[in-house]
């Protein structure tokens, strides 16, 4: 009775055989391998640093001044990044359980619970031993829960908390008043003697300028990489692949390795484009992605989109480390603390809701997207707040097909693949019918 498994022109979805066919290896995929090597080296540097008696500062991904820390030889540790890596490797439940046994609610943030769980276990995690903090740099104050995370770590480790209160971007057009920048600069200046005291080293301003200059170069290259998403077809997935690619700009900013990585990546993306190679067999749908990814099921989550030959052309998540593509900041060795303050303010999560919607509207237009996916997470209400309203705004007022799905970024208990697949499949069927019209 079979009439053939090959798709016919009117089909709105892939056939069984199309699903079974393997996506050919993209090739041109060396940057991801390089990222893996850099991440491994970063983790090894933590262990080597611990053995050498170096100082460690725990800091948040959003708006941190690691260039300033590096000028004192302080090694930054990013509990968010270690948590997501542990979750990616399937190790989240043990650390979450450790916190929940202490009394943390199932509804509390998964990052916080994993981070506290790791501290309760003396830094022992499935990806190795994470050194104890000497300094807790509370640089992101947009999330109340994060403040308590550092407070809890202070109780558990005794490390002092240094706060840099970063003001929220309150203006709808994204403008930041000069006194906000002065406010952050003032706090950075106050932080310098504290860091001198903590390390016993004098502040080396030249080292800061050099780090800032290397950061600037890396940001410029990363921005160019992200902008290749405007090409048709896009040579990379600006969400699922960016999750890998954004790691050096987060962990290694201010280093030569970081600059080299983005130079390599930009070249690879150009080569991909010239050869017509991309992350999926074809580019049938161009989508915008908003929200934090699902790390425990990252690859199968991505497969739900790959199956439809959907490529993300722009996304907001990689901008939590800095909204580099909005031209809102540019590091400048000539004004190191001022430009660092500007950078620290311009983290995506620091942007008001109107500004976020404006950025997404620009992405839809500039990147010629067919639709938008919003992935809300149970853990983070500050990131997911307003997602329902954003969906309605795009779907009803702008006629941009928009799908809202929900799970969690680290806690595997909130992910149900069958339900997720149903929603994603239905969304792309709708897009396929829309394209046919």
């Amino acid at each position, binding site marked *: 009775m079979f009439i053939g498994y090959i798709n016919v022109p009117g089909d709105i979805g892939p056939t069984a055989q199309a699903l079974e066919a393997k996506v050919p290896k993209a090739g041109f995929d060396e940057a991801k391998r390089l990222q893996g090597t850099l991440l491994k080296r970063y983790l090894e540097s933590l262990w080597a640093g611990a053995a050498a008696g170096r100082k460690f500062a725990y800091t948040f991904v959003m708006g941190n001044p690691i260039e300033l820390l590096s000028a004192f030889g302080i090694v930054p540790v990013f509990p968010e990044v270690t948590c997501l890596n542990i979750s990616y490797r399937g190790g989240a439940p043990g650390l979450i359980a450790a916190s929940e046994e202490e009394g943390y609610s199932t509804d509390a943030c998964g990052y916080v619970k994993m981070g506290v769980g790791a501290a309760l276990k003396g830094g022992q995690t499935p990806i190795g031993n994470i050194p104890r903090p000497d300094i807790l740099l509370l640089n992101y104050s947009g999330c109340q829960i994060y403040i308590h995370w550092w407070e809890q770590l202070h109780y558990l480790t005794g490390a002092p908390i240094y706060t840099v209160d970063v003001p929220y971007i309150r203006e709808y057009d994204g403008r930041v008043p000069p006194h906000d920048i002065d406010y952050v600069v003032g706090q950075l200046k106050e932080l310098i003697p504290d860091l001198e005291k903590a390390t016993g080293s004098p502040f080396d301003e030249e080292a800061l300028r050099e780090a800032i200059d290397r950061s600037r170069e890396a940001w410029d290259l990363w921005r160019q990489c992200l902008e290749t998403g405007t090409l048709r077809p896009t040579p990379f997935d600006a969400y699922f692949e960016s999750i890998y690619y954004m790691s050096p700009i987060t962990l290694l900013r201010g280093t030569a390795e970081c600059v080299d990585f983005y130079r390599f990546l930009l070249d690879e993306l150009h080569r991909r484009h010239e050869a017509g190679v991309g992350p999926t067999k074809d580019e049938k749908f161009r989508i915008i992605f908003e929200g934090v990814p699902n790390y425990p099921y990252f690859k199968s989550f991505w497969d739900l989109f790959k199956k439809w030959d959907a490529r993300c052309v722009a996304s907001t998540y990689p901008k939590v480390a800095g909204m580099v593509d909005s031209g809102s900041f540019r590091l400048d060795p000539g004004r190191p603390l001022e430009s660092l303050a500007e950078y620290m303010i311009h983290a995506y999560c620091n942007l008001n809701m109107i500004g976020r919607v404006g950025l997404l509207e620009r992405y839809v237009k500039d990147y010629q997207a067919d639709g938008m996916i919003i992935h809300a997470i149970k853990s983070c209400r500050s990131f997911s707040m307003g997602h329902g309203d954003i969906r309605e705004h795009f779907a009803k007022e702008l006629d941009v097909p928009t799908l809202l799905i929900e799970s969690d970024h680290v806690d595997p208990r909130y992910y149900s693949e069958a339900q997720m697949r149903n929603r994603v499949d239905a969304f792309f*069927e*709708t897009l396929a019918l829309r394209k046919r019209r």
Partner: protein
Amino acid sequence: MGAYSVGIDAGSTYTKGVLLDAQRTIVGTAVQMTGVNIVAAANNVYRAVLQEAGVAEGDVGCLVGTGYGRYNIKFGHVQITEISCHAKGASFLFPATHTVLDMGGQDTKAIRTNERGEVVDFCMNDKCAAGTGRFIEGSARALGLSLKEVGDLSLRSNRAVQVSSTCAVFAESETLELLAWGHSLEDILYGVHSSIATRAIGLLQRVGIEPELAFTGGVSLNRGMVRCLEEQLGVKLNTSERTMFCGAIGAALFGLERMEQEVAAPPVRA
């Protein structure tokens, strides 16, 4: 190539099958509990629709699987989600449809459609069975009643008891507690149906309610549910004894379209 098209909707609770002839006439329908063996249920339903219509397997040109178990229907040609299929099926049964509410065993879907029965927008319940058929099932089980009985009994009440739980699991214990407080069975059941209707209308509002409204899925057979939705919405819902089969009807229609497309542009044989 055969002229008939089959749609099989392997849902979380029931598996439904529909056989359409080339003129888009429904010539066979079948339903059975999905149970643990989705493939067997799908196969049984497939055989049953063929038998009902007296059609041989060789006369089937296309078989489309839909519902949660669609990927298990390996003997089918295409898998399409029940969201697209319910939209198409509802539009087939009620051509003026612009909004569809599909209430099944574990999912409730609000779908906005265009005049061709294509999905324009949709919203589904969160990863939670509150506001779905499972919620009614839990209350029915707690009260030792069948699904048909709970709907009919609720119609006898004019005073709904507030059911505050939003959780399908807790709804069972809340139902028993309300009984212990002395509320009548009918009033509690009216409350259960009202509570689900409120949640479903919340979903509908997210996609925007545009008349006419079709109510599909297994729960559309529940008269108590229809009453509560119509009361709260203030409009009449389109339902029939066939709305339970909407997903399978839509799937079979997609199959027919595929067959017509194939005649126009024959695909390369696998």
